């Protein structure tokens, strides 16, 4: 069961964001955003002008106008701050929850003599060995060196079902703050004090370590550049007007400036970035940097492990294929007997299939008469020794060699036939498992099949629509790999892959200018994860893998890579859409403000007032109000992201251009006119 990670509409979050919005008025914080800094400076200037007016001339229509403009300019800054604070708020709420898990727990450090001493968790250093018993909280990140236990990791993952952690292999990493439910673990500490996974996670979700991504930096430069361009256009307007004998007031000029500079995107840019990371977090993916999220949108190639990602992870028995002359029922019975003690998923699937096909087998009641032969990497077969018969199933060559050694008649033909069946199965993407007995010799071949997860074909179709290539990585032979690749619908495959092949493949692709994403969990994967542009590590993975990747999936679901790519793209599209909208907005604002400034002295310019606004003051005020409110109106979009649908690039571009480009051109004409009607009706101007 999943815990609801964030209550996005909690009133407390709004309260906190509102308070933060004011706190962020601090000029030093504001200076990080050049656009909003200019608005802030402008607000200050208009406020001074307003107060000056008020003190010298008392309350007048002019003062009222100046006051209202100042108010709305301050509101513009506050709205932008609010958007950023709101985006940060979700992470902060999350961080609070995590902090509760970071209590200073007692740790039982193992001394040389085998005894333990109780120390504070914060006193642990790397390479310390600690003992954790059932019911205790694991005091620090580490690797299990002894024992196996069920661990409740809900404090980090939100997933209440316990997971197994055991020494050796790829399930050995444990995280400080999680609770051991059963058994006893000896853990070697791997973290420096104060730098635990939980600490890092808190810092990440809180945004304390948030750094601007390359694209965000570039966009900020562009926005700053546009701000300077408009500053130039507005500052020079004063002497231009003087040439015509018009003296334009500072309040109107600042209003024009604020309307022209890209406040919409400038105000929402930070929020968009934070919200992107937050969307990942809500899918239980922890991005180590904003750069990783951005890279996710850019990915050209997805490397996916076959097992566990594309297929269900275990081969399942799909068919029994007896040799000519062997009764089907006899073969099924032999297969069932040979697998009866086999607890591997494959073995169980053979039993299930045999039972489903009416197979029955009775084993001698007394356990002493039955000898189970487990699978080993050397023999590459398993089976059972009954009092009167030995049964084996396993890799084709291994079982055939075993059958040869029995010296039964007619072995050569059976051997050739079994080999033929095995080849057919392999060509089809399956794994052949030959069954033989001491009584009959080779009986037939079991067809084990990789089961592609349901819905994978559709997902790969979507990925292809985004223009991303998928490559399946598998240790299987080429024939098998090809068949599964075709069934799952991936673009390409790498067969008989060793861990270093993965690394070479990534390096090669990057040399061609491609960005590569992959998921992994084992220590084997660490170099490839570190080399890839987006390396998604399963939370169940080893410590080495977790260090190498730049995203961690707390649910340990490798297919999530696809969603991550979508979230990355959504983040970039949202940024682009709001930038386009913001720039397109300017056209209407010119048509509102320019005639308003000059209509008194150059009445002919009234012709540019295509919106037919009530008065010059209402025109300027309406533009400023629109400019402020549009930020608020777009906060939900910035936080939620533009709806992303996988489709062709050209199609996506056309649609987004129509909505945000043309929409951005038209919306302010309508908006400013409506606000003008409203403030006129309210008698504000």
């Amino acid at each position: 069961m999943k815990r609801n990670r964030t209550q996005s509409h909690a009133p407390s979050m709004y309260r906190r964001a509102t308070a933060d919005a004011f706190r962020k008025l601090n000029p030093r914080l504001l200076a990080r955003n050049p656009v909003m800094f200019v608005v802030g400076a402008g607000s200050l200037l208009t406020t001074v002008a307003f107060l000056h007016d008020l003190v010298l001339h008392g309350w007048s229509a002019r003062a009222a106008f100046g006051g209202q403009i100042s108010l709305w300019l301050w509101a513009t800054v506050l709205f932008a701050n609010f958007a950023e604070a709101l985006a940060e708020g979700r992470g902060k709420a999350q961080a609070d929850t995590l902090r509760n898990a970071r209590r200073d727990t007692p740790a039982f450090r193992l001394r040389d003599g085998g005894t333990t001493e109780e120390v504070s968790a914060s006193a642990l250093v790397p390479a310390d060995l600690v003992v954790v018993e059932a019911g205790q909280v694991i005091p620090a990140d580490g690797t299990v060196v002894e024992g196996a236990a069920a661990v409740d990791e809900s404090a980090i993952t939100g997933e209440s079902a316990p997971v197994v952690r055991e020494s050796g292999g790829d399930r050995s990493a444990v995280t400080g703050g999680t609770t051991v439910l059963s058994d006893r673990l000896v853990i070697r500490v791997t973290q420096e004090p104060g730098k635990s996974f939980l600490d890092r996670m808190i810092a990440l979700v809180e945004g304390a370590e948030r750094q601007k991504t390359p694209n965000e930096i570039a966009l900020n430069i562009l926005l700053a550049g546009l701000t300077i361009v408009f500053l130039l256009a507005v500052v020079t307007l004063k002497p231009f007007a003087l040439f015509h004998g018009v003296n334009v007031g500072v309040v109107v000029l600042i209003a024009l400036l604020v309307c022209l500079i890209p406040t919409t995107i400038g105000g929402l840019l930070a929020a968009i970035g934070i919200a992107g990371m937050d969307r990942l977090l809500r899918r239980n993916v922890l991005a180590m940097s904003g750069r990783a999220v951005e890279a996710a949108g850019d990915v050209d190639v997805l490397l996916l492990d076959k097992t566990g990602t594309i297929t269900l992870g275990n081969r399942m028995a799909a068919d029994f294929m007896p040799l000519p002359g062997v009764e089907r029922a006899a073969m099924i019975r032999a297969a069932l007997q040979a697998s009866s003690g086999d607890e591997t998923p494959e073995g169980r699937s053979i039993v299930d299939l045999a039972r489903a096909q009416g197979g029955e087998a009775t084993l001698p009641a007394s356990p002493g008469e039955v000898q189970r032969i487990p699978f080993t990497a050397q023999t590459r077969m398993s089976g059972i020794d009954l009092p009167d018969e030995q049964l084996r199933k396993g890799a084709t060559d291994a079982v055939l060699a075993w059958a040869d050694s029995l010296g039964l008649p007619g072995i050569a033909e059976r051997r050739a036939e079994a080999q033929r069946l095995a080849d057919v199965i392999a060509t089809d993407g399956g794994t052949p498992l030959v069954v033989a007995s001491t009584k009959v010799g080779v009986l037939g071949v079991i067809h084990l099949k990789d089961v592609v997860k349901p819905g994978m074909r559709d997902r790969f179709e979507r990925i292809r629509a985004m223009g991303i290539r998928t490559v399946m990585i598998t240790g299987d032979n080429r024939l098998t790999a090809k068949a599964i690749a075709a069934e799952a619908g991936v673009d390409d495959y790498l067969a008989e892959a060793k861990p270093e092949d993965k690394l070479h493949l990534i390096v090669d692709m990057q040399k061609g200018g491609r960005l590569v994403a992959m998921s992994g969990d084992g220590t084997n994967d660490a170099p490839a994860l570190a080399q890839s542009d987006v390396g998604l590590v399963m939370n169940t993975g080893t410590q080495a893998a977790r260090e190498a990747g730049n995203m961690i999936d707390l649910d340990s679901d490798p297919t999530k890579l696809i969603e991550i790519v979508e979230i990355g793209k959504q983040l970039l599209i949202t940024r682009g859409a709001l930038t386009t909208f913001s720039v397109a907005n300017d056209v209407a604002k010119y048509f509102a403000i320019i005639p308003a400034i000059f209509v008194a002295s150059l009445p002919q310019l009234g012709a540019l007032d295509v919106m037919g606004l009530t008065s010059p003051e209402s025109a300027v005020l309406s533009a400023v109000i629109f400019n402020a409110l549009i930020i608020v109106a777009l906060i939900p979009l910035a936080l939620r992201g533009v709806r992303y649908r996988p489709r062709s690039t050209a199609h996506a571009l056309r649609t987004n251009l129509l909505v945000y480009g043309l929409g951005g051109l038209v919306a302010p004409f309508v908006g400013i006119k409506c606000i003008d009607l409203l403030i006129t009706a309210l008698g504000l101007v």
Partner: protein
Amino acid sequence: MTPRDYLQLALFLGILALASPPLGRYIHRVLEGGRTWLHPLLGPVERLIYAAAGVDPTRDHTWQRYAACVLGFTLAGFCLTFGVLMFQDVLPLNPQGFPAPSWDLALNTAVSFVTNTNWQAYGGEATMSHLSQMVALTYQNFVSAAVGIAVCMAVVRGVARAEAQGLGNFWTDLVRANLYVLLPLCVVGALALVSQGMVQTFAASFTALTPEGATQTIAVGPVASQVIIKMLGTNGGGFFNANGAHPFENPTAVSNFIQMLAIFLLPSALVFTLGTAVRRPRHAWTVWGVMAGVFLAGALLIAHFEYRGTPAMAQAVAAGSPATSVAAPGVTSPPAPASMPASTPSSVPNMEGKEVRFGIFSSALFATITTDASCGAVNAMHDSLTPIGGLVALVNMQLGEIIFGGVGSGLYGMVLFIILTVFLAGLMVGRTPDYLGKRIEGREVTWSVAALLLPAMPLLGFTALSAVGWGPEALANAGAHGFSELLYAYTSASQNNGSAFGGLTVNSPAFNLTTAAAMLIGRFGVMLPMLVVAGSLAARRPRPITDASFPVEGGTFALLLTSVIIIVGALTYLPALSLGPIVEHLQMLEGLLF
């Protein structure tokens, strides 16, 4: 517009479209050191130049080195021109015995010619000695254009090359652009112009007897050879003060047509040089289409408003009095004899300031072309255009001289807008922006924005200062038209166009120094940042161009690029324009004149 006008327009664009791709490929070939049929003839000359100058033609320049060469070469050219002008009274080839110009005029003129602007604060045939004309007009017309082609090629290489440090060799680019591109085209073009009766002689003048019996000294000279490079190099500085309106400098409709083609030919061909270098002809056609589209819109707008004329003229025609005497108390050019149809008094074509042998359309077309490309040659008085006609001319320049634009500078200016477009809208396909596989990041954006911002600074800044300072006393016209004249002067200088609106006395220290500064900032404020961008792009490893890449070809991109050009250009200058030609137009409709 008449059917003949449409025919001329179609013919013009048709010939341009046919000639540009092969010429563009040819330019790419010669600048990259490929061999052509001209090599047996010019190859030894090229090698001789390298040997004499001590240039190693195989050396590849980084952007820093390339920029340093551009600056050094330009500075040397400036010193030469400035020196010749300052000492023209004591230097040879001064038969008329002209004195040296003032230092500020000499400075202004030298800057003007090395920046490919050809802003002329002096009267050509009445101020400059033959030596000055030869150094300023002839030499600089060639090399400033060749510098443009060279830098353009460096920027093209930046886009095309992958993981490279160098942008090519400035010296070979310069020499090859002159030898294999400008020189052969000039020879062919000059012969074509002479066939139309254009003057080409070493004689300085001859004396004629007028019908009234008076004697008149008529200046002549090597006109055709000067005119062709002034057009091909988008220089625009005329042999005669009247520029392309002078019968010897532009005798017939055909010579007018050839000159218009010559202005657009190289900027248009360079688009296909880019297309060839990046192996994407469709991208080149898309960019060309955008240029052609904005050009067409401008030409049709000017033509429409010039045909419609002004209400004052219509009233004057209806009243039977000569239109121009009512319409233009402040007009500086002599009123042209009007041959207007008197049938519809509500709309009388604006023939003021136009040559009868060209008529409305050829004048409107010329005005569009000369302001689109940063040429600045004129065959009609821009001051006498209708307000909207003047507006189009101003906007054409303010867009950054990228609608075909100056030789070389037009294309690298356009690359700047492509980068901005890709960056602004590229995110909307869900990837970080790239141009032909080259990622656009902080460095590219910083310098592109600088290239956008720098010419706007002197343009708006000096217009503003002059409007409240030295401007009004130099103006012949008051009100909005006077403002347009100031705006036009600084626009023309900052965007390196060089054409003059007129109506403004610009030979004063204040104007000479500020326009000189504007020309320098406008030239190098775009050129140097674009070299930085090119250097950065060249070093990048391109990502493969796939279906997921932001499409830089086809209709959507063309529309997008056009919108960015118009919106970014318009938004910066709209306040200024609304106080100039826009309000003037609106006032004109109310019958208010200046």
